[in-house]
């Protein structure tokens, strides 16, 4: 591999690049999809290639190819330089990268049971057992069960002498039961809508006990058909970790991406209401609100050794005791606010340029009450569980979420179900209204394997650790 990376870097440098890096990526994926106890699709994919990123005349260029030859390394490096020169005709600020020591070493996701070594028929059988248990529940219209694993082998080299190798394994699985009656369609998922994901081996899937939860979620889907719709009002809400992580993702993770604050995502996903002059002073949330981007936490979808610029994994505070204090950043953006890169640059494969992505953006637990304890402490509230829909404006202020199930909480007891539950608000108003956060015993990691950003579109795998929380005076029950 060093032949190819050296050739690409040498060629780029010889043609005028003041900085160059190259990533060689091989990605393996395997997926199983079962629908109504029938094996609908089993697929395996493999892709490999390399991408060369250069700075020439103060501008970026990037080119990539699937042909792993030194001749192609020459061509791609030359293309990247040519593209950078074209970019340089329309720049107003030259690229300046922060300093960092050359990155060297190897990182491998800890895996107890290699998912790619487990026989396919065993993985299918485990899913089928759970899917059949859901299908057997009276009133279920159709079921869907999924399993997927991804392994990325990545070599990074840069013109500053950096050379790292990483092997990152991600895995996810889950169940979905659908009950339909006329126009009404209700769904329950376990452990999460789209499956629960982590950086781990097959032991993670075994630990889910899919079969043991199948009948329960299917029964809940059927029960929701006859539940009343959630009435409109202003209520105390409790966000179960299966919803709270999406709240963190959309209303904290994305607005703290520094490229959004600088406008470079404006044409696609939007910008951010959190601007650099608000650092250290803006009250984002209540005193209980501590949010950290942590690429070192074991098991997260945003856990790695180095980002795709060779910056070591680290913890970056974003919100401290409610005050906005930090951004997810890169080597180009961090110096513009007088800081060093927080190591958040990742690319979706060899043919995409790295972008600022969430690592694991975690709401830290608070000593005191478990999430169950917070529910027991709530006199009159609504418990929202398992994300179903999500939407937020282009500056990440006005949001609306829907969950698969809402449960009434009266005098500390969980009671009746509501269907089609939604809640809406303004980001900082919601976080300022948070008056209880679950303790470490309730804290768990969740994953978003479908985070979209960038042009051309990239799909990111990011993580979120949360323990459940309570919010006051939130508008609920929005439906036309």
């Amino acid at each position: 591999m060093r032949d190819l990376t050296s050739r690409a870097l040498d060629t780029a440098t010889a043609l005028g690049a003041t900085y160059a890096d190259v990533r060689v990526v091989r990605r393996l994926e395997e997926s199983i999809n079962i629908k109504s106890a029938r094996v609908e699709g089993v697929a395996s994919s493999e892709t490999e290639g390399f991408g060369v990123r250069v700075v020439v005349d103060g501008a970026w260029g990037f080119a990539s190819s699937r042909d792993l030859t030194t001749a192609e390394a020459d061509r791609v490096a030359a293309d990247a330089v040519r593209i950078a020169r074209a970019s340089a005709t329309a720049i107003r600020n030259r690229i300046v990268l922060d300093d960092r020591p050359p990155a060297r070493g190897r990182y491998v996701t800890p895996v107890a049971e290699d998912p790619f070594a487990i026989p396919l028929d065993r993985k299918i059988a485990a899913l089928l057992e759970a899917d059949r248990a859901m299908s057997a529940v009276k009133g279920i219209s159709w079921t869907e069960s999924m399993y997927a694993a991804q392994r990325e082998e990545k070599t990074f080299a840069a013109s500053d002498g950096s050379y790292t190798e990483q092997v990152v394994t991600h895995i996810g699985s889950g169940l979905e039961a659908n009950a339909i009656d006329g126009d009404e369609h209700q769904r329950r998922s376990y452990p999460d809508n789209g499956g629960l994901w982590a950086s781990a081996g097959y032991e993670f899937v075994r630990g889910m006990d899919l079969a043991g939860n199948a009948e329960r979620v299917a029964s809940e889907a059927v029960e929701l058909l006859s539940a009343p719709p959630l009435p409109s009002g202003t209520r105390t809400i409790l966000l179960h970790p299966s919803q709270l992580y999406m709240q963190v993702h959309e209303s904290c993770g994305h607005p703290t991406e520094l490229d959004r604050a600088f406008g470079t995502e404006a044409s696609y996903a939007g910008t951010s209401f959190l601007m650099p002059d608000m650092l250290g002073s803006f009250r984002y949330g209540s005193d209980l609100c501590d949010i950290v981007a942590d690429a070192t936490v074991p098991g997260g979808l945003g856990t790695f050794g180095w980002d795709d610029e060779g910056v070591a994994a680290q913890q970056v505070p974003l919100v401290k005791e409610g005050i906005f204090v930090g951004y997810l950043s890169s080597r180009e953006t961090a110096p513009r606010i007088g800081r060093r890169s927080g190591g958040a640059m990742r690319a979706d494969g060899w043919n995409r340029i790295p972008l600022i992505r969430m690592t694991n953006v975690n709401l830290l637990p608070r000593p005191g009450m478990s999430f169950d304890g917070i529910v027991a402490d709530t006199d009159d509230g609504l418990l929202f569980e398992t994300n179903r829909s999500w939407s937020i404006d282009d500056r990440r202020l006005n949001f609306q979420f829907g969950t698969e199930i809402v449960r009434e909480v009266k005098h500390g007891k969980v009671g009746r179900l509501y269907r089609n539950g939604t809640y809406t608000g303004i980001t900082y108003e919601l976080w300022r209204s948070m008056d209880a956060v679950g303790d470490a015993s309730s804290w768990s990691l969740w994953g978003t394997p479908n985070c979209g950003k960038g042009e051309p579109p990239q799909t990111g795998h990011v993580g979120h650790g949360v323990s459940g929380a309570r919010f006051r005076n939130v508008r609920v029950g929005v439906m036309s």
Partner: protein
Amino acid sequence: MSSSSRTLGAAADPETALRVAEEAVRLAARAGVSEAEALVVAGESALTRFANSEIHQNVASNEALVNLRVARGRRVGVASTGRTDAEGLRALVERAAAIAAHVEELEDWAGLPDPDGAAPGPVPAAWSDGTGGATPELRADGARAVIAAADAEGVTAFGSFSTDAEAVAVANSRGIRTAERRTTSQLLTVTMGPDNGTGYAEDCSVDATRIDAAALGREAAERARLSASPVDLEPGDYPVVLNQYAVVDLLDMLGYLGLSALAVAEDRSFWEAGKRVASPLVTITDDGRDPAGLPMGFDAEGVAKQRLLLLDRGVCRDLAFDTQTAARAGRRSTGHGLPAPNPWGPFPINMAMAPGEATFEDLIGGLDRGLLVTRFHYTNPVHPKRVVVTGMTRDGTFLVEGGRIVGPVRNLRFTMSYLDALAGVEAVGRERRTLRGMLGGCTVPAVRLASFGFTGATRAG
């Protein structure tokens, strides 16, 4: 050192792609499978991105995908690879065959499609040398033209200019052999002014040289100027005019949630044959061969694309079928299959809404008090079967009174059944735009709706 002067389209050779597909099918047959189908997509994609009125990202990639579906009797496996060399294809066949050996039988497996359904030939309109020969300099020229227009209005430009050229080929063991080359290009821009004004403009075309970057820049910049200093507006139900950029989302969601045979079979769709779901002014088709859109002659199974009359003057008529859903319904595929495995089902990816007679002034003129919406942002189904969707307005939302634009309002959240919205179509614009939809091109007019439900508003900061 090799030259870097290769154009975008050099890697998009249909004959080469078809040879790779045929070789994969041949190797699969030698491996003892009873059926095999290879989809090959190979080409080059490039994109120039600009923000704060300067280019900040400029990328190109040379990519290939070989997707192989094999069957051993009724046991089906799928594997894909980015490699097209002999060793890569051998490994691909091995993986697909191993999957097929381990999965359970599909009782209703209908087999791969026959050549009878294959495309009559490539769609010439799917390719343009203007995009196939696109260079980084062409894209930079486009970016500079948008930026110049923004500069002239005193606003800042953000956006992207993409050019893609690909060869697509499908071969299967039943005799389908089809290939064509396709190009697409898209220029979009968001502009921002000093007083929270924002604008948007977009164009998609098979031919990148037909995109008028300067005109798009002027359109977006003017919209940003007009939308400066937006004011709060009480959410509620308002009649609206939706610009084409917003209408594309209506069609996307209908296609995604309801216009496929599998969605109907699973009872998750609103669709019922002969049922009125929209105003008589609404006719929606899907036509892969329509040169007005982003054409393609065949689907991922190599089946010729048929024109579908999805909504005929507001009434449900056709549905999208692939080979498996068609067999279950006792009919032929309409050429709307996606790459296997595809648990979501067939998809109409070349949708168009028929134009009406109204000018833009007619549409606005019909609003006594209502809103003009430029586009939607981050939409998501809240109740899929009723096509209830939530999202935000973006890049220019204007209050209209007495048929005239009064001024900009702050972006609003809506939670609205798109079926209810389409049932209230009062007028349809005569000018259509081809824009990028969820999976393909989408050609739409602007429309005026009797009512649209806004359920919230964003804040200034």
